């Protein structure tokens, strides 16, 4: 049973557009939601994260919108650049800050930004 779902599986946008990547989860106890960015042949790197006490988090061109009631969140990438082309993973965990906490990853969204 997949606890973290992502959609779409792949997304193509033109340079300058806003890319919207969606994520939903099942466990209402999840309290921490990071997004990781992965380029081919490399390990993922943390892009931006949000705690369940917030409904929005911004970092430059990247914004997370979080809806706790609907158990949904989305990553918006404004002014998309070809260099943003990568796979984006939504993840979730509970008991933020506790030892041995496990992150559960979604299947990822492959983003392609066309120049």
């Amino acid at each position: 049973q997949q606890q973290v779902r992502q959609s779409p599986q792949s997304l193509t946008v033109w340079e300058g557009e806003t890319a919207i990547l969606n994520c939903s989860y099942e466990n209402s106890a999840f309290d921490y939601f990071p997004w990781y960015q992965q380029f081919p042949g490399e390990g993922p790197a943390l892009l931006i994260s949000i705690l369940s006490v917030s409904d929005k988090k911004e970092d430059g061109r990247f914004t997370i919108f979080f809806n706790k009631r609907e158990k949904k969140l989305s990553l918006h990438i404004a002014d998309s650049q070809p260099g943003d082309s990568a796979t984006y993973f939504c993840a979730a965990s509970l008991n933020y800050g506790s030892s041995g906490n496990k992150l559960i990853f979604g299947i990822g969204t492959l983003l392609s930004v066309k120049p």
Partner: protein
Amino acid sequence: AQTIHQWPVAEIKAVGSPLSLGCTIKGKSSPNLYWYWQATGGTLQQLFYSITVGQVESVVQLNLSASRPKDDQFILSTEKLLLSHSGFYLCAWSLGVSNERLFFGHGTKLSVL
């Protein structure tokens, strides 16, 4: 600055052969260490984690084992590879006691034939 190094970069192995993958973290004492597995085009599945030397917790059973012989070293191994072991193996470390921010290595691509 902390660095994480995984070896080898890639491996092609026969079914039934043994495997040993390694990971070294420099510049951070007593990190939490993790092994993740990623199928081609797939999600990341945590396999093991370790919070201290000599202690390793298994998260899923995939006929693999892990050990932490030194504070900065994490080893993933098996005596007999299966076809299903193919994929991308990622070592990661985290600050403090939880994995709220994971720092991944560049990974090892394993092909089992």
